């Protein structure tokens, strides 16, 4: 791996001043914490007061930009669409589809650029305006790079069409000419406009020869002396052989014709046809692809890749893709002329011309502030089957690595996290774990958000995360005394222990207030009741109350008894249950059978005689002896009376 010469540059945290103090650091889920400290732990505090400030730092602030959010949202749609159509892509249509996807991404970038440009212009004198402007340049550079990658790697333009694509590329990105054109043509006497010749030259440099000819004819009209020369030059422009789409000529034929035409231009130059008009002469040299003449137009060309394409247009129109890099390197060298060194953008473009995809990705990763670009581009190139698997420590290929880096940044955002989920989904090797780590950290600020997060986890069978999140929500609900909510969360989490805890709270509340809260929930527990014994008891106990309310006394009675005999009811509750039995014992008709009454008596004896069973954590001691004794007395009396009546009833003949 190459060595980079640059040392990592330093980020300064403002306000933390002293040179003697050290820096303490920790990670938050989406940010970093920094504060001044002293690691040398002395027992006595130094009398010098430390700095009480803690700084919270965040990278990747792009995620918070409102305008870029559209970029993230729309590109997410394209990304997901691409993953889905992957299986259907075959043969010829595959390439066309992939090119379409690439163009979609690019149009999203351009839309974002447009919008940001509006803001930049509106705000142009402030720092924010400048920030917008710089964002616009970055987006523009991204689109420039992406476009080139599309031509070279996805479209895979062969010699011939390659040049046409490159011309389009340059025209798209060096577009001041349109403004210039409007200026000049809008003036009274275009050919006398001070920028007239600049315009014509620019048009020629961009291979827009028809428009250049129109300009020349205007010059011819106003300046009779040059009319002849303009006509000749115009003819040369008109007759330049170009590959038109759909043309059936071969490359060789084109080359041959082009060679002839080139010689004709050369002859005119030698003959001095344009000698009396330096503008026209220099234009002729341009048509001949003369490097020196082109370099004179450095300012109009404005960058080396424009220079490259113009050079190719007028000297190597049938350039082969694999030879591009030679011309690219020489163009870069000539254009910079040793006065300046290549910038990161130049290096990226050069890597593309060299068809070194990995280098392109690497350089882009270094140069750009956000993983968005490399993640999406790499994914697309991967679909074009252009990436060899690169084994990382992380164990998977570069595509996943980049996508997950990008997704990590999304999870920090309060609504974009949902996009992050999809990116993780499409990383078969490491996506799941990454999702598991991130999803638990999403703050569950509202019930709605919690439900969304849970749905995501449930859809992916992330049972651990579901359990964990439900548990957190259940705890929060208990703390806020929303027992019904807590219960439903613990049921969803399938957390028996917590369900028991919440059920206990319900029962305690009942004992204190004499009524249940959240009846709806308890009534409709269904099979969830089986989650924990205490919960089952709660459900059944409520059922007892319902039966009693419906005057189905016999059923209620059996249920009540079974609650005690089956040991579902906690011992601490037995007294309450027995007390509940009282009204049933006092009814006119006999409800409890003799057998049942014996059972009840046994339960009562159990309760009053014995010490708590071992293992019962919260046995209610029989306190307040007076009240308790009275209760017990009343119960004994009621039970005895019922026993008597039931024996009599059962002993008698039916109906009598």
């Amino acid at each position, binding site marked *: 791996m190459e060595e980079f010469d640059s040392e990592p*540059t330093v980020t300064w945290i403002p*306000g933390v001043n002293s040179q003697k103090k*050290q820096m303490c650091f920790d990670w*938050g889920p989406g940010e970093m914490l920094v504060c001044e400290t002293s690691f040398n732990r002395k027992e006595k505090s130094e009398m010098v007061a430390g700095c009480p400030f*803690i*700084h919270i*730092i965040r990278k990747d*602030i792009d995620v918070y930009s409102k305008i870029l959010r559209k970029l993230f949202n729309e590109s997410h749609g394209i990304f997901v669409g691409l993953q889905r159509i992957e299986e259907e892509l075959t043969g010829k249509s595959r390439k066309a589809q992939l090119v379409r996807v690439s163009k979609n991404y690019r149009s999203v970038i351009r839309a974002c650029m447009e919008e940001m440009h509006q803001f930049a212009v509106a705000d142009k004198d402030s720092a924010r305006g400048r920030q917008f402007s710089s964002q616009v340049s970055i987006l523009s550079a991204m689109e420039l790079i992406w476009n080139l990658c599309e031509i070279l790697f996805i479209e895979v333009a062969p010699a011939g069409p390659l040049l046409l694509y490159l011309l389009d590329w340059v025209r798209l990105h060096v577009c001041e000419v349109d403004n210039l054109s409007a200026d000049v043509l809008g003036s009274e006497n275009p050919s006398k406009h001070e920028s007239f010749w600049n315009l014509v030259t620019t048009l020629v440099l961009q291979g827009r020869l028809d428009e250049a000819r129109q300009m020349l004819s205007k010059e011819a009209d106003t300046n009779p002396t040059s009319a002849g020369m303009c006509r000749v030059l115009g003819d040369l422009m008109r007759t330049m052989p170009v590959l038109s789409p759909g043309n059936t000529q071969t490359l060789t034929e084109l080359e041959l014709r082009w060679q002839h035409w080139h010689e004709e231009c050369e002859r005119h130059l030698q003959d001095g046809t344009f000698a009396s008009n330096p503008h026209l002469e220099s234009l002729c040299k341009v048509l001949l692809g003369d490097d020196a003449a082109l370099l004179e137009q450095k300012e109009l060309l404005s960058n080396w890749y424009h220079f490259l394409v113009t050079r190719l247009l007028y000297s190597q129109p049938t350039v082969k893709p694999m030879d591009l890099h030679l011309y690219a390197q020489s163009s870069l060298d000539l254009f910079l002329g040793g006065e300046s060194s290549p910038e990161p953008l130049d290096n990226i473009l050069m890597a593309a011309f060299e068809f070194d995809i990995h280098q392109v990705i690497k350089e882009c990763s270094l140069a750009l502030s956000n993983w968005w670009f490399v993640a999406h581009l790499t994914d697309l190139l991967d679909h074009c089957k252009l990436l060899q698997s690169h084994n990382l420590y992380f164990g998977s290929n570069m595509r996943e690595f980049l996508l997950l880096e990008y997704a990590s940044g999304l999870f920090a955002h309060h609504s974009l996290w949902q996009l992050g989920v999809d990116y993780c989904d499409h990383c078969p090797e490491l996506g799941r774990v990454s999702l598991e780590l*991130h999803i638990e950290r999403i703050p569950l600020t509202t019930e709605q958000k919690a439900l969304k997060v849970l749905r995501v986890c449930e859809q992916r069978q992330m049972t651990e995360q579901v359990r964990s999140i439900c548990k957190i929500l259940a705890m929060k609900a208990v703390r806020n005394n929303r027992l019904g909510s807590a219960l439903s969360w613990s049921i969803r989490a399938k957390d028996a222990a917590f369900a028991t805890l919440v059920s206990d709270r319900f029962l305690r509340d009942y004992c204190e207030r004499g009524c249940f809260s959240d009846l709806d929930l308890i009534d409709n527990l269904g099979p969830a009741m089986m989650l924990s014994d205490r919960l089952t008891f709660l459900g059944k106990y409520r059922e007892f109350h319902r039966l009693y309310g419906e005057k189905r006394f016999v059923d209620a009675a059996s249920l009540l008894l079974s609650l005690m005999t089956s040991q579902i009811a906690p011992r601490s509750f037995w007294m309450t249950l027995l007390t509940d039995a009282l009204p049933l014992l006092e009814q006119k008709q006999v409800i409890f059978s003799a057998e049942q009454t014996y059972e009840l008596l046994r339960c009562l004896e159990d309760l009053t005689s014995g010490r708590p069973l071992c293992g019962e954590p919260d046995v209610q001691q029989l306190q307040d002896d007076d009240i308790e004794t009275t209760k017990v007395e009343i119960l004994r009396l009621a039970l005895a009376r019922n026993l008597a009546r039931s024996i009599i009833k059962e002993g008698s003949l039916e109906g009598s």
Partner: protein
Amino acid sequence: MGETVSVINTVDTSHEDMIHDAQMDYYGTRLATCSSDRSVKIFDVRNGGQILVADLRGHEGPVWQVAWAHPMYGNILASCSYDRKVIIWKEENGTWEKTHEHTGHDSSVNSVCWAPHDYGLILACGSSDGAISLLTYTGLGQWEVKKINNAHTIGCNAVSWAPAVVPGSLIDQPSGQKPNYIKKFASGGCDNLIKLWKEEEDGQWKEEQKLEAHSDWVRDVAWAPSIGLPTSTIASCSQDGRVFIWTCDDASGSTWSPKLLHKFNDVVWHVSWSITANILAVSGGDNKVTLWKESVDGQWVCISDVNKGQGSVSTSVTEGQQSEQ
């Protein structure tokens, strides 16, 4: 074009003395800090704000570290101090209170770390008396203590838990039954060693491995979060200025190989992993925090130096590579 880092909030803790630790809670909504002024403070830092939620007093000496428990257990914070105590604080009904105090150490307690939530509520504490104690919440306000005496001679400086890994099949256990986790944690001490501890079937903790590479006191250890690969990773830093990355291929289960991340010119005090374990932060005596990342070919690359000082709010940071020694 470059990366920007931006200070989004500066919290004025009003601590009257040196701050020793600051920790964000699970969701990044609350910040806990502790200081030589003997207090532990909790702030609500949502939306760039800073609201003091609690000012907890109870320690009688400088407080060295704080640690948040997993939110499923409620809002719980542990702190450890020079006063030989570990205090566990809990938020009940909107107020923070001391819920437990552990006084089983004879010397300063230097480090506290909560175990993965899957194991329950368990806190490991490392102390200058050389012992490590493990506090397990058993319910109803009760905490069970297990102590590993003489874990490190002279003193233990750091403890860090391994991420939870369920051995064997991943079939859902019936509710109420806990899967059989193999609980492990790492500790670093003044004997220049890193030790790996494992819980045996009988509930006792046994020293499983010794990792030797440092030539001076080990100041911090950090076990990286699991990212789904079969390798385990631990970062360690020491008085000797070195930071090592230890990796173990789980297939063999027992061979840990160290890789020197970097040799610094000063003591390195603190190492910590980002949430998804892809960046390691190293805090050193040279007043800097460096961020490291493993690159495509397995080399560790320094991606940023975070320094303190006066200067512009956001500057460019570019990735680069520092040579290893």
